């Protein structure tokens, strides 16, 4: 079982975490076309590589960001979400 490091609780077994999807920028709903919106809603980039993802340490309900190389199955780093990141 893999180990993931929660920015608050430290390294824990992956079974304590839940995946929240890739962090993607929402297009402005007021101005974007239906097609652009549908692309945001339904399409995901599954190609292997470095992904920036939402993860939650479920026992403590801590949401954070994990950078993961899905080609190598390696967690590169984890940190709490800030608008700047």
């Amino acid at each position: 079982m893999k180990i993931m490091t929660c920015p608050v609780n430290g390294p824990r077994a992956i079974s304590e975490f839940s995946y929240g999807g890739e962090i993607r920028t929402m297009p402005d709903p007021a101005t974007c076309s239906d097609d652009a919106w549908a692309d945001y809603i339904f399409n995901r980039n599954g190609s292997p590589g470095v992904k920036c993802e939402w993860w939650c340490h479920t026992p403590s309900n801590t949401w954070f960001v994990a950078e993961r190389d899905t080609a190598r199955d390696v967690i590169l780093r984890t940190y709490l979400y800030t608008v700047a990141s």
Partner: protein
Amino acid sequence: MRLPPQSSEWITRSKPLRFRFEGRAYAGFEGDSVASALAASGVSVLGHSFKYHRPRGILSAANHDVNALMQAGGTPNVRADAMPLAEGMALTAVNTFGTLERDAGRFLSGFARFLPVGFYYKAFHSKRLFPLWERMFRAMTGLGRVDFATPRLRTPKRYGFCEVLVVGAGPSGLSAALAAAEQGAEVVLVDEQARLGGSTHGASDLIDQVTAHPRIRVFTETFAAGYYADHWVPLVEPNRITKMRARAVVVAAGAYEQPAVFRYNDLPGIMLASAAQRLIRRYAVRPAQRVVVLAANADAYRALQDFIDAGIEVAAMIDLRDAVPADQQSMLAALHIPLHAGHCIVEAISSGKRVAAVRIAAVGAATPATNIACDGVFMSVGWAPAAPLLYQAGTKMRYDEGVHQFVPDTLPDGVFACGRVNGIHTPAARLLDGERAGSAAAAHCGFGTMKAVSVPAEAESPTHPWPIVSHPKGKNFIDFDEDLQLADLENAIQEGFDNIELMKRYSTVGMGPSQGKHSNMNALRVLARATGSTPGEVGTTTARPFFHPVLMSHLAGRGFTPERRTPMHPRHEAAGAVWMPAGVWQRPEYYAVAWQSRAACIEGEVLAVRQGIGLIDVGTLGKLEIRGPQAAEFLERVYISKYVGLKVGMTRYAVMCDESGVVIDDGVVARLADDHFYFTTTTSGAALIYRELSRWNTLWKLDCGLVNLTGAMAAMNLAGPKAKSVLAGLTDVDLSFPYLAVREGSVAGVPARLLRVGFVGEWGVEIHVPAEHGAAVWDALMEAGKPHGIRPFGVEAQRLLRLEKGHIIIGQDTDGLTTPGEAALDWAVKMDKALFVGQRSLQAIAGKPRRQQLIGFMLPADHAGDAPKECHLVIENGEIAGRVTSIAWSPALARHIGLAYVRSDMATEGQVFSIRLSDGSMVMANVVKTPFYDPDNLRQKEPA
């Protein structure tokens, strides 16, 4: 036969053990394996092979002898070479029809040409003959017998942690463990044998240092069953499994000695040289009197002294190599053993029970040179690395022409290899290689610095690249598990299965119980030669966990899926609750009444609510609280209705969509103060919705905070025409507060939140109290309601009551594609809000024709026969036009009522549609307006 006491022997001669094999009595000693005790008693046939039922004996004595599988009482497929002997054991051989001595399946050996390679594929190709072959194979195959009366075993599981895990306690593993511990790391050393030392059979002087070291924990009789991510290795002990988490893993698992391939190389008495050494050194058993040693490396010559010491006459040394090194030649000369360099065994000759002679020839010669009489053949022609853990860890391996074996090329972070598995075979070099790997592993964990150790390369290859002799009559076995001969593989390749993965599946090579530990390397060499490529180009097949078979009782255990119970659980239990799972919760489906059917119980509960008073535990609902100046704005963003304008003291139904506009949850939002809301979610959605809302707030950073009170609060719904008067005697709250309002006060002396709700269609109030008081409040309500015939009601009664009101259940009346409009929730959607989750998607579909519509329906009053069930399809002109989501018999209306999705053009009130039952017959139904019961909602607003 048993030798005089050996310095390294594992047996305790003062403790004799008696056992039975195939009905006959034998004796051995404590410390014996079943195979060694039988060998000491002169038994050479331990079992029969899987396909041809050929007699087989000891091959490896290293827990890979799958032709010596035995049934030990209720335990099937015990490996005799590894099973410790115990007093009173009763063993029988598997793969026999009748007994080992009179096996009715022995004739199969003569039918080999009717059992070609890929036999299963060929046999099962014809559909017509499939049942015939299936019956025959089921009768003929199957190894051991499962005894269903075997007592249930509970095997403990535990979690372990260490810095450096060393797998294998041979010379390199011992050396690695010591080096890592010396640098300060906490080390765990595991070995599948009962004693440390590996091929030194306990003679290594490192053992004392390792066992005395305070930072080394030793697990014997334990094997590392597999490698899982981030250095997680299950250690399988005889009566326990330890899930070991290490920070670095050193694989010092050694190598499997490989058999040579020649005609009748499977006769009992023909074994690996290392097997003969194990029998001699560990068990003080002389495996044969007069042997021929088949050699191709220095290991054969190192083992020679053991054979001589055991009083074995070595009749000849047959060496596959043309050039035998001088020191090895002079060793033979000193011992007066004739050497046949550049020779091979072409064929072994059987006495009926075991080998009686070998026919030898110069390698490549057309005709055999000479026969040598012997009762044993010891083979030492090469090794294959015990690399499954390395492969599982993601190691890139390469074929090293210098040692003719696969060695690690690129190791993953924190994984190290040393010793024979790393291509280092010379005893002194293995110690150095272990020191190097152990030091590197400790340094990887932050202990000390990596020592520079230079490990000398092998002077000559310990493995022969082609220990295979073809024979026109075959029976030169490559895979003893599956009885595959050289020609079988050659035929498979000819038939086009010339890729290692294809050849494996087609021929089943390496797919037997030993998983190719003695066959994969030779099979790979055959394929390489046939296709004109190198073993490195051919590559290996995937080595999946487990390394050895693991008992099911080691793997089975308690589920770790938690089950939640509300504080009133014991009350439900006492009231005869029949339980049903709801998400992670257990909820009463209904309360059983003696001598009443399920349906009658549920109808009784429904009647109590409609005519008197009922109480249901709704504590499984998700219960959340949000506070802060922007709490209202947060709720406006996550629900489709408006909450900024909600008055303090009022509640509002709340529907949540995901970003694609699909309905995912519902509940009730109660405003307790300007900046303070209390709200509920569905039972199954509770954990998920709280998590998702937390994510939104992490992203939005609004000035508000969420608290999950699901476990902290108990909740119950008191409903029915008598509910108001019953509750009035228990609370300080003025119960004339309006429908859909919320009040805080006390119930039965406990602080409570009262929400006026109408889910079941009668005057009702949800009472939320701190969980620790839940049972007390429940008791007080039940007691106060007793004069009015109060009944607790379960989920089934509630489902019917709400169906009569046309209220939907998210997840039952909606699915993963349902929009609010389809679920008849248009009234709740406030598109004029600034922003809410799902809004943009709902805008996009607003102008498009609606796919389906949820409607209420009734069966005709005179409906007879079976009623539709949930998920039965609506059929229009032979096409699917919808489905039933809820249906029940309504006692109040004396009709079957339900909810269904139908095409939008079929959704007008009064339209008739047909529903197809499981048996294909059609039932007609009418679209009707909901609520079915009390359409103006008068009953839930005013008490009767």
